[in-house]
């Protein structure tokens, strides 16, 4: 019986691993093909089944005037927007989460839990519902097709995540820490910045990782709210997906764009193994 279980366990885990890895292997193989090897039917192994070329990769770094795609600009835009919005969300979200975890708020029937729920419930809002009003809102501010406008919108996407993780985290940090600091003569701000914050770095890192993931993988707002001046990576790549799709450069661009976040998978796993994530995510 235990042997059967072990066998099934390995079978299932390996099967799922193959499923997870399949699109990546396909993309890697496709990125070295050219027009003829793509339209000739599905092939997988370079040299043996098709003649590999680097065209799909080199076209990514050429400017548009030379028939290239040039994803470098969009790449930096994506990094800038994701990091800035994540940073602002973490700062504001951590402060709000601290208040919600340590103090009691009461205004009529609205209590702490309701305020926390208000923050988190913003995730329920489907992007498409917000897209039309945001479009008009940003154009009236002159922020359409700009990095600042996108950052503004991404804060709405990311702050709920930061608040969700940090409220749970602060609820786990013992209150005695701040109380001791207050007795020692700190005012609440000093207590927060000198004592609580240094103890909250693990939670903030987890919240930060999640903000970066969900900021980096967003497509819809960037698609609706930017056109030509500012382009983010997903929009640029999906734009290649037209009637005559260059599968090779598409695959190469896709691989380049998902690469940085795969590092995040390693960091998250480290946290899991050390047991730091469990507290912050439960």
């Amino acid at each position: 019986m235990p042997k059967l279980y072990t066998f099934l366990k390995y079978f299932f885990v390996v099967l799922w691993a193959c499923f997870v890895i399949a699109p990546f292997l396909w993309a890697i193989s496709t990125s070295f093909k050219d027009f003829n090897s793509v339209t000739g039917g599905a092939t997988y192994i370079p040299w043996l089944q098709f003649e590999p070329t680097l065209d799909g990769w080199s076209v990514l770094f050429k400017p548009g005037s030379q028939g290239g795609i040039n994803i470098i600009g969009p790449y930096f835009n994506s990094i800038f927007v994701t990091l800035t919005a994540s940073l602002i969300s973490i700062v504001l979200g951590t402060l709000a989460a601290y208040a919600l975890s340590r103090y009691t708020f009461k205004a009529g029937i609205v209590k702490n839990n309701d305020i926390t729920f208000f923050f988190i419930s913003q995730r329920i809002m489907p992007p498409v519902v917000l897209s039309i009003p945001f479009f008009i809102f940003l154009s009236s501010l002159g922020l359409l097709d700009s990095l600042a406008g996108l950052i503004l919108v991404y804060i709405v996407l990311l702050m709920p995540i930061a608040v969700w993780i940090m409220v749970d985290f602060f609820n786990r940090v013992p209150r005695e820490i701040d109380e001791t600091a207050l007795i020692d003569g700190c005012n609440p701000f000093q207590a927060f910045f000198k004592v609580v914050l240094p103890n909250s770095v693990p939670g903030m890192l987890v919240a930060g990782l999640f903000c970066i993931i969900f900021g980096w993988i967003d497509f819809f707002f960037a698609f609706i709210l930017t056109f030509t001046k500012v382009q983010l990576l997903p929009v640029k790549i999906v734009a290649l997906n037209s009637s005559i799709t260059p599968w090779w450069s598409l695959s190469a661009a896709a691989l380049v764009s998902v690469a940085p976040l795969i590092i995040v998978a390693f960091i998250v796993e480290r946290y899991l193994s050390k047991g730091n994530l469990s507290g912050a995510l439960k």
Partner: protein
Amino acid sequence: MNFKHKYVFLLPGLIVLIGILIFPIIFTVRLSLSGWNSFNPGLDFIGLKNYIRLFTDDPRFWQSFFRLSFLAITTVFLQYIIGFALAHMVWKDIKFKRFFRVLFLIPMMTTPVIMTVIWRTFFHESLGPLNDFLSIFGVQPPWLSSPGLAKVSIIVVEVWQWTSFMFLLMLAGLLSLPKEPFLAAAVDGASPFKKFIYVTFPLMAPISIGAIIIRLIEASKIMDTVFVLTSGGPGTSTETSSFFIFIKGLREFQMGYAATASFTYLIIMIISLTIIVKVLTKVLMRE
């Protein structure tokens, strides 16, 4: 503790969030009462006409809504079963534990639209590897151009993408469980199966509820996958609510009507998620 400090902590975040959101929300409600379209742009007032049209004369909206419910519930159910199973399998003794953990985490880190573009080439009828493999068995299913299979393709991609998120939440939960109940079960000589039913599963119930709710909220917004993989097609057979609103508002420019659909969709979403939370809590927390 001092009273005023708490507002200094809370208000910056709250004000920023409300400040960015207040206009879009009020505007959506106002827009839903107008007949704004490409011939007649502007905020006129036509009362509840849009709502009457939506509720009495638009089967397409309701079809897209039921399709969304079907897709969301199916994918989240599969993600939960597979994610929990995977988390349980790599929780304790298994070879290459960390390798599998990292690998299973990767899909959620990848941009859905970009991976869907790859999946679209993967499902390609004549040039994709899937049909190349299936041709061994002599079949070439039209993955993206038949209404039924297009839904299956979307489910496959959604499950590929988001099982890893479920896996992460469930594994984090498993790793935070106390050790004592398992020791007690071992002393009583419980079989692995019984251990799971009577110890692991009940302990994981609150985490399961949280994870399912989070995934349902995210799944209720399915849009990116549909947009790239099938564009709602063939016909309207894979159109979800978000995609319907997108077509009405930003392709046909019936802004007023799209706002009506948005607002209705949002209200239904909030009500049904509240009900689901209640039901799940009742079912999974029986003990």
